[in-house]
């Protein structure tokens, strides 16, 4: 589904991503973890076309996409959500989703039909006619997912859609993510909450200081000393011996 080879990104003189290489297979749920500033969102920005990598290649469904714009990448079936949610504040939840659907659907009517289906799927039908600005954090995150879903993605990049939710909301979001996998959508997920990411991912990729430090099944990554070091510091790892 997605093949990433040797991509790098600098801001000024600082490498934020350095020679990142990995693959994501059809139907997988891959988690992306790493401490703050590790480069997770930057990686999403590169994959979704908001940043350009000066090196390497990104192949999506066998096609080179590293030179494409975000809008064209989305139309190829790779869609992302934003960690800092970006609802269209003055439009209703429904029309937020309609706009997502429009890039794939032929006309407004078809897009509206699709939007209603999606609102049903993400259980937001009751908020259908509220303006985007009036939503709670949890609903904003849900709207991010709903809109992205409306673009009929094959691969969906979820950027911290569970951050800042209360336990109840969190459970709802986990259910939603599971439903997405049942629909056959491949997921690449940034998440801070370890138990959650371990639970939903088939495989995990860990970043630290822009480097890919570990990759594998959740259990293996969780026990990897480099990951522990990145999260907890040298001393902790040494003390655990």
């Amino acid at each position, binding site marked *: 589904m997605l093949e990433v080879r040797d991509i790098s990104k600098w801001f*000024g003189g600082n490498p934020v991503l350095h020679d990142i290489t990995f693959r994501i297979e059809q139907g997988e749920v891959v988690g992306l973890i790493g401490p703050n*500033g590790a480069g997770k*969102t*930057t990686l999403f*920005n590169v994959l979704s076309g908001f940043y350009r990598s000066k090196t390497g290649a990104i192949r999506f469904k066998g096609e080179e996409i590293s030179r494409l714009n975000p809008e064209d990448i989305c139309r190829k079936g790779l869609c992302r959500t*934003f*960690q800092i949610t970006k609802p269209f504040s003055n439009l209703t939840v429904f029309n937020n989703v309609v706009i997502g659907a429009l890039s794939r659907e032929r006309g407004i009517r078809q897009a509206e039909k699709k939007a209603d289906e999606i609102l049903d799927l993400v259980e937001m039908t009751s908020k259908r006619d509220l303006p985007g600005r009036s939503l709670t954090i949890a609903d904003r995150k849900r709207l991010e997912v709903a809109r992205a879903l409306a673009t009929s993605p094959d691969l969906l990049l979820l*950027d911290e859609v569970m951050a800042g939710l209360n336990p109840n909301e969190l459970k709802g979001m986990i259910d939603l993510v599971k439903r997405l996998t049942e629909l056959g959508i491949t997921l690449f997920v940034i998440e801070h909450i370890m138990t959650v990411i371990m639970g939903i991912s088939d495989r995990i990729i860990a970043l630290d200081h822009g480097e890919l430090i570990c990759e594998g099944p959740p259990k293996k990554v969780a026990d990897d000393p480099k990951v522990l070091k990145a999260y907890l510091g040298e001393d902790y790892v040494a003390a655990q011996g």
Partner: protein
Amino acid sequence: MSSTLFAQLVISGILLGGIYALSSIGLTLIFGVMKIVNFAHGEFLMLAMYVSFWLFHSLHIDPYLSMVISVPLFFVVGMLTYKIFIRKTIGAPILAQIFVTVGLSIIIENLALLFWSADFRTVSLAYLSKPLIVGPFPGLGLEEIIVNKARFIAFFLGISLSVAFYLFMKFSYLGKVIRATSQDRTTALLMGINIDRVYTLSFAMGILLVGIAGALMIPIYTVHPFVGFEFVLIMFVVVVLGGMGSIMGAMIAGLFIGVVEVFSGFLIGPESKQAIYFLVFIAVLVFRPSGLFGEKGEEELERIEAIGE
């Protein structure tokens, strides 16, 4: 072109540029700190010219002395303008940010027209009437160079005040607070800086600076209600060229535009010169939105902030 003529043009250009620099600094300060383009800046300059004109005309106060009155006056005008109009536009949609000051400029311009009519008014000072003759400098191969006294004074005071203001911004506590706020509003807020007060003071200082510029310009230019519009366009060019928000940039760009204007006026005629520098202006906006002399990367930083991490 003889070397004397060349030197004459350069000197005229630099003298002109000093005026542009001083009047643009306020505009760039206001943009840098509160990210608002003050479309009414030219109209405040026009008001300042009128103030000095009327003080001279009715009370016989020398325009250079009138600064003693216009400086505090325009500081207060700036403060009130901020509190009544500008404050409401901070964080408002772009339409409000642009058109509130556009509306202000329409109101001020036409009030001036109502009260003072469209007549052209000038202040001529006897002691300035004879130009300074510099030279000849046989060693440099230059003949006599003519320097307009009023322009020389305006340049000298304008540049000194600009430099003083630059130093003030760089080293004084208030200057540091203002610069901190313009770099990162949120962090400044977290550091306990009273943003609203910084904005009030910055706007007031920006307007105060055109108060000074007005007094320096009235012995040189005629004042009429539409004079602000003529100058504000040049100020935009200077500010964009210097990098929006950069005081040093505005000073350099002011001098640069002064020289460009004098040369292009001489070489291709006064009518087309404006068109030329507006085209330069668009080119700079497009290819180097941070300005020719501004710091790089502001645009990119904004992008990074917008999409996270």
